């Protein structure tokens, strides 16, 4: 299943993360996964929230450049070697990963990894074929 990630353009200035998180908190939006990619001048904040459409609308109204991106959330058994097995699968099937990060989801014996791939339908089909569960939403 495809899930919606929210991507936000941010300048590297102090307090900017505080601004974004306070804005989402006031609207009662819950974050399920979060990651930041940083460069010298700017960063890209990526996150998965429980109400993605509302969150993007709110962010845009508040003057942020934000957009929704299709990503995969895959459940990974919580013991050594499992992530390596999935990564090998991506390599062998030739599906490129743009980036990935772990979610904040707590599940017994399982972790959820958020993955952005170049070809999302190929990625989903491959995971399904090899018996990995992708989550419909958080």
């Amino acid at each position: 299943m495809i899930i919606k990630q929210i991507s936000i353009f941010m300048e590297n200035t102090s307090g900017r993360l505080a601004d974004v998180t306070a804005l989402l908190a006031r609207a009662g939006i819950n974050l399920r996964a979060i990651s930041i990619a940083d460069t010298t001048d700017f960063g890209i904040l990526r996150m998965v929230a429980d109400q993605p459409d509302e969150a993007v609308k709110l962010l845009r109204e508040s003057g942020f450049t934000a957009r929704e991106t299709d990503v995969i959330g895959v459940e990974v058994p919580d013991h050594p070697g499992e992530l390596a097995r999935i990564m090998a699968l991506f390599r062998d099937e030739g599906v490129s990963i743009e980036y990935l990060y772990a979610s904040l989801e707590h599940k017994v014996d399982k972790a959820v990894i958020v993955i952005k791939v170049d070809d999302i339908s190929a990625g989903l089909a491959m995971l399904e074929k090899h018996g990995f569960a992708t989550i419909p939403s958080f």
Partner: protein
Amino acid sequence: MPIWNREAECAAPAARQKLQLERLQKAVERVYSRVPFYRQKLDQAGVTPDSISSLKDVAKLPFTTKYELRETYPYGLLACDRSELVEIHTSSGTTGTPVVGAYTEADIDMWSEVMARTLSMAGCEKGDTVQNGYGYGLFTGGLGVHYGARRIGANIIPISAGNTRRQLMIMRDFGTTLLTCTPSYSLFLAEAALEEGIDFRELPLKAGCFGAEPWSENMRIEIESKLNINAHDIYGLTELIGPGVAAECECKDGLHFNEDYFYPEIINPETGEVLADGEKGELIITSLEREGSPLLRYRTRDITFLMREPCSCGRTSVRIHRLLGRTDDMMIIRGVNCFPSQIENVLMRIEGTQPHYQIVIDRGATHLDEIEIQVEVEEALFSDVTRAMEQLRKRIHDELKSELGISAHIKLVEPRTIARSEGKAQRIIDKRSL
């Protein structure tokens, strides 16, 4: 398209030159006899009113600079009795003592005439509704357009500058057909209209007259597509009259100079030598009919060239090319001359980039000039993939380098972090102490 004054605007060149010479002789006589400042300058140059026997003799006259206008503030250049004045305007004075324009009744009459010509070039006729978004007050834009539209008999909405939401509401509700404001403000309106859910394709707006700041051909394309109109460049300056010195007709190939009132020359700004038609240099203007504040050979600091080829609209007046820059906002970065308009052209070429940018020039630890260009990242430019954003930055950098020959640091910034102006845009911040 209507031609407001066919007799004057389409006159045979020889007849116009005869008129220009008569007016030039009177103008020199007027300042020589009435303005001590000019009498002294002309005496020093060894020129008297009798020295002017052909239009070429204009080159014998001394230049007038902005510095001299400030030095003679407020009434030092007045060429009439103060009781004859009916209106005063000044420049904004953001860069020093304001420059004064003093108008007699005849000056206002002439201003109305040249502005009627200007608005007609954009298709304005009786029955049109003109939304005048230039500031009313000491700034010449507001009242200049007002007088021209009055002369034509169009319906004027004197809304002045600012209050964007009301501009849009009025434009929709009153069926504005012609918009006058700064070019950057027109794009600001387009952006705001999107947020307000107003679609320009559904409005009767057909044209706009945009001036008071330099803009590019690419910006015209963006304004015309976003506002669904014809965008006309207009030129003028407080020192000479305000708007109404020159304007574009429907051919949009240079601005027709109202040369029966304002005599243009192009000079080499370094040497003062008069250049031939088609050669780029500083625009010099002599007012031929001003009574209140006449000026001889005023150095505008604007860079352009004269175009004397016939225009297919039928007007015979000389045209100036759209401004290429100013001698005083020309940036010299590591010895390379460049103009903000060149940077704007590059930014506009990159799809989706709106012209919201700022140039910051500074000297780093090495004491070498460093240029930073801040570009606002709108949604169209934004990607969640870092690599794509770095590529965007590299593309802007590389295109600027090939256009200007200088390597600039490109800083991608959040939307609305660069101050939006409802008047003139501050594009350059020069932190160097030169």
